[in-house]
């Protein structure tokens, strides 16, 4: 592709970029979070949210207001925005959006597979599925008896098919532990997404590739950390690491041998980006590794908005919006459980 996105990006995608920047400007600020944290009840929280861009989204809710209702409504709102973006997009932005939804689709498929195997009713599982990961063949899931049937009949039509084919042959699908399957699918997905961005070239590659590299390395670290003390063997663990990050190949090999947090920290010390992150773990605020990674993710997503004419703004917006939703749900839970000591542990965005 020609290296001058400025000349023709706006022809196809200018309207949507303008729209997403407007949405980003309406994300909650630090002042908003401080106001929310001072609320005494969930009703107060609702009133405060009315003054933000959320407006009257909780207006039709019956009493009593619960945290899960707030969560569902916020998610519906995000889904509406996302569907609008998606419906108005042209290629290759539409493929980009499809890639973005694949991660939610993976979670939904795992949920459906599990439910189908246990002969649960499809309707109840469909309610629990993430709306962003909807795909047309979802309802047909209950006709399959085993995972391989499921794959052959249904999944082969979805965008997830190449990820399944990457992971394994059909017969192993039956014995595989559900969590291992989920992580293997995610690994293939990340690698495919990365290749897509890189091939697209231009500013999109410059912005998205570091974001995806960080996501890959973060997964490698977290999987390693969570597998200490479990039955997951080192070889199995290594098959779950995505290979698109800075850690590939030496870092991943070292990580696969790590047996505790300190060894992991020593691996991270070789990389300039990850050294300060690991040093921030523990400290005075009692931060966990995941908290530190979330903060870093928010920072690089905000930086994505500093450049124009690329698709990364859409990805960054959705991730930031999700973090905002998590923050609001956290504050709401602290308020409703009257456990205010950690109410300020949300991750501020702007």
């Amino acid at each position, binding site marked *: 592709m020609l290296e001058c996105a400025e000349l023709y990006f706006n022809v196809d995608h200018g309207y949507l970029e303008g729209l997403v920047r407007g949405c980003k400007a309406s994300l909650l600020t630090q002042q908003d979070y401080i106001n929310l944290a001072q609320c005494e009840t969930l009703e107060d929280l609702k009133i405060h949210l009315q003054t933000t861009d959320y407006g009257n989204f909780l207006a039709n809710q019956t009493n009593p207001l619960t945290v899960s209702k707030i969560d569902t409504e916020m998610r519906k709102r995000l889904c509406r925005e996302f569907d609008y973006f998606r419906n108005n997009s042209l290629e290759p932005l539409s493929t980009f959006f499809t890639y973005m939804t694949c991660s939610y689709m993976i979670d939904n498929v795992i*949920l459906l597979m599990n439910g189908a195997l246990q002969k649960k009713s499809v309707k109840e599982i469909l309610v629990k599925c993430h709306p962003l990961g909807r795909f047309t063949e979802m309802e047909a899931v209950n006709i399959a008896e085993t995972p391989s049937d499921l794959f052959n009949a249904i999944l082969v039509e979805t965008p997830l098919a190449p990820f399944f084919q990457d992971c394994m042959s059909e017969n192993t699908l039956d014995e595989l532990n559900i969590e*291992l399957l989920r992580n293997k699918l995610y690994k293939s997905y990340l690698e495919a997404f990365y290749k897509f961005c890189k091939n697209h070239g231009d500013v999109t590659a410059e912005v998205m590739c570091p974001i995806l590299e960080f996501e890959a390395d973060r*997964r490698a670290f977290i999987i390693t950390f969570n597998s200490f003390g479990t039955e997951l063997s080192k070889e199995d663990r290594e098959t779950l690491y995505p290979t698109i990050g800075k850690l590939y190949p030496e870092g991943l090999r070292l990580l696969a041998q790590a047996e505790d947090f300190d060894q992991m920290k020593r691996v991270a010390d070789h990389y300039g980006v990850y050294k300060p992150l690991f040093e921030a773990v523990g400290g005075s605020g009692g931060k*966990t590794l995941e908290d530190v990674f979330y903060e870093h993710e928010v920072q690089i997503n905000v930086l994505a908005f500093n450049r124009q004419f690329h698709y990364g703004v859409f990805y960054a917006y959705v991730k930031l919006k999700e973090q905002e939703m998590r923050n609001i*749900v956290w504050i709401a839970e602290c308020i409703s459980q009257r456990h205010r000591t*950690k109410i300020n542990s949300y991750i501020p965005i702007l």
Partner: protein
Amino acid sequence: MSGKDRIEIFPSRMAQTIMKARLKGAQTGRNLLKKKSDALTLRFRQILKKIIETKMLMGEVMREAAFSLAEAKFTAGDFSTTVIQNVNRAQVKIRAKKDNVAGVTLPVFEHYHEGTDSYELTGLARGGEQLAKLKRNYAKAVELLVELASLQLSFGLNVPLLISSQSWMRESEKSSIG
């Protein structure tokens, strides 16, 4: 000492010996029952105290557990459906044993673990640490609940025993005075 409490008796020496023996028997019976009632009262008080302590602790533990659920959801997202779908066998089970106090057997519940954690790999890529903490908190809550259950059961059985032993005592007091 008139009226209904009078026993009709023929005033002979044998009758007097028999009455004295009866009196002695009633007094011994009353003392034994008093000892039993005292032991039960003591145990009763101990159990009551323990129940109050455990209930207060229970409030704290449940609050902590509910909060750690919120923390886990913050980091790991919504894992509730995955957890509910994968339930197959119980990991913590209860055995009922008999305990003997002052001649009375009371049941006591004891919990034991069986099998491995089927949710070991949940949250592998996100939120595993918080999930582990969550599992620990709720396990503590379950153990406390089991303890509370056996305390309340023994409390519940204790009370009628105590009442009946005290009423027998009064009966024997009446007959010994008479």
